[in-house]
């Protein structure tokens, strides 16, 4: 048992994901608390150069192999398992992203290790690891501790720490780890398909009117379109709206969709699940309208309205139009 803290340094298509730096910052805090080393584990093909950006870690464990060029979940888990079993760090922090999803639980299942999912923060309390987790679509927070002394696998949400805190100019030492991935695994990467260009580029909008399941039906989206026209913005959506085919994928904001930073983000009938929030939390100003006073979206909003979006929208759009006319008339 080394007692060290490990972080899975996620890279995808030749770039380190931003969440890697966030988790390095969290890992650094944990390692410093416990007085142990922080190691970043980097898996891929021809990724040696990326290790130099991971200087927040004391060193980088590099598993570089042509068969690891793409993130095939079971293949990555297979090459990580023996390393983890051999060195037994205190904790292995794995990003909860589409790319890394499943790797942590596969390792935990394979090696019979405790897994704690949905972590937002972690500390040592009396030398025992304690994680703070966000569950139930963002509504509930749990304090959780792994039992026994085995390596804990922690699945970490985005934004556990600001990514800037995980950057360092220091060059970390790199230890290369030999691996022999299965040359004919049951799951094999084929190709990437880039998204078709959407009719609007959400990332370039000053104002976004975002609609969620609370809008109830596709017909009601016209109410949001009208407001978007009034304020010169575009309509975007949470995942269920896109899964229902009310809007195309190019309009989805969040983990699997786009990350947006408009001046104004108007969230209508969106609960504020962490997967949605990670795509819009950096907006300058967030207004949320939700019938549920407990909706987690109010945790990230600047202005909140507990109420029916369908009722508010036409009144607000009329008020906006009225104000425009009044302004136009005066000037």
């Amino acid at each position, binding site marked *: 048992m080394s007692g060290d803290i490990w972080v899975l340094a996620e890279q*995808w298509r030749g770039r380190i994901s931003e969440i890697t730096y966030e988790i390095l910052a969290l890992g650094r805090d944990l390692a410093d608390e416990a007085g142990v080393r922080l190691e970043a584990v980097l898996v891929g093909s021809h990724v040696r150069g990326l290790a130099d950006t991971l200087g927040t870690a004391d060193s980088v464990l590099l598993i570089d192999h042509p068969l690891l060029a793409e993130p095939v979940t079971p293949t990555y888990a297979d090459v990580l398992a023996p390393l983890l079993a051999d060195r037994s760090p205190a904790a292995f922090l794995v990003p909860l992203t589409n790319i890394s999803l499943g790797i942590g639980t596969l390792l935990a299942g394979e090696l019979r290790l*405790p897994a704690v999912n949905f972590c937002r923060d972690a500390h040592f309390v009396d030398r025992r690891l304690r994680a703070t987790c966000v569950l*139930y679509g963002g509504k509930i927070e749990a304090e959780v501790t792994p039992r026994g002394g085995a390596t804990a696998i922690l699945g970490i949400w985005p934004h556990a720490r600001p990514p800037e805190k995980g950057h360092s100019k220091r060059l970390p030492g790199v230890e290369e780890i030999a691996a022999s991935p299965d040359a004919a695994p049951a799951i094999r990467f084929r190709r990437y398909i*880039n998204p078709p260009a959407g009719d609007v580029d959400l990332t370039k909008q000053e104002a976004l009117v975002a609609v969620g399941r609370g809008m109830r039906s596709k017909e009601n989206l016209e109410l949001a379109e009208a407001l978007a026209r009034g304020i010169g913005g575009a309509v975007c959506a949470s995942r269920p709206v896109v899964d229902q085919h009310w809007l195309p994928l190019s309009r*989805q904001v969040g983990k699997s969709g*786009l990350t947006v930073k408009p001046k104004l983000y108007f969230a209508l009938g969106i609960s504020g699940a962490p997967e949605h929030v990670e795509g819009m939390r950096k907006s300058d*100003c967030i207004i949320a309208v939700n019938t549920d006073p407990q909706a987690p979206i109010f945790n990230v909003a600047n202005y909140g309205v507990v109420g029916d979006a369908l009722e508010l929208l036409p009144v607000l759009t009329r008020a906006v139009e009225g104000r425009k006319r009044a302004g136009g008339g005066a000037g």
Partner: protein
Amino acid sequence: MMKIAVLLKMAPDVVEELEIAASGKSLDFKSLRMAPNESDEHAVEEALLLKERFGAKVIVVALEAPEVDEALFGALANGADRAIKITGLRENLTTAEEADVFTRVVRGEIGAIPDLILTGVQAIDDLDGLIGPLIACELGLPFLGVVVGLSPCPDGAGMVALKECPGGVRAEFDVTPPAVLGIQAAERPPRYVPLAKLQAAAHTKKIELVPVPLPTDPVNPLIEVLRMRRRAPAARAEMLSGSVEEIAGRLCEVLAGQDLIEE
């Protein structure tokens, strides 16, 4: 013919108010309204689509829970071949325990390992890990998650799985069955079951009950919940109240302050 098992579980409906149990360590299950885990419904839909398009035998396996019969009859009404309900369970199982129960049913009741085991990609209560990878480990199968499409491989045996990546990018993977796949979204929204069709299924079809008793105490849980609480809302937001007109007026000022209303 391809055999597909879909695992379905009920999860608390988070649109409702969630109450914490007196222990302070879990939700109060008596007060909860349960609904099928959203991505599990997509897993059922994806299995039914595969059956319609390419032929398959679809077995839906669910853990006993309030309202689960409706979900199972719905699946039968929509074309599932079998619906199995696992009974005799404690409430508040860990995900590892759920995976263990599912695995035993797949081994025992279904007999041979199905070609595909579909689960929802994740559930809002998967605190000790995701169920798909845990089942994959127990059965010694590979796992791929965030899947949004499945079809037979055009140039050989096996399946092609479409997986969601960040930013709207998708990746295609060849999958040689048997495999466990975590479905994020079916290619079509899960179909709605009209009440009449549901009632007809409840009369003519049968849910198979399979008891899988667990010890009354959790099986050596690897993690311990020390405390659970509701997240305090409105930590940051300035809440606007008043009549709809008053609120609209206030919001107009906010929008004008952002130069979004060109006067």
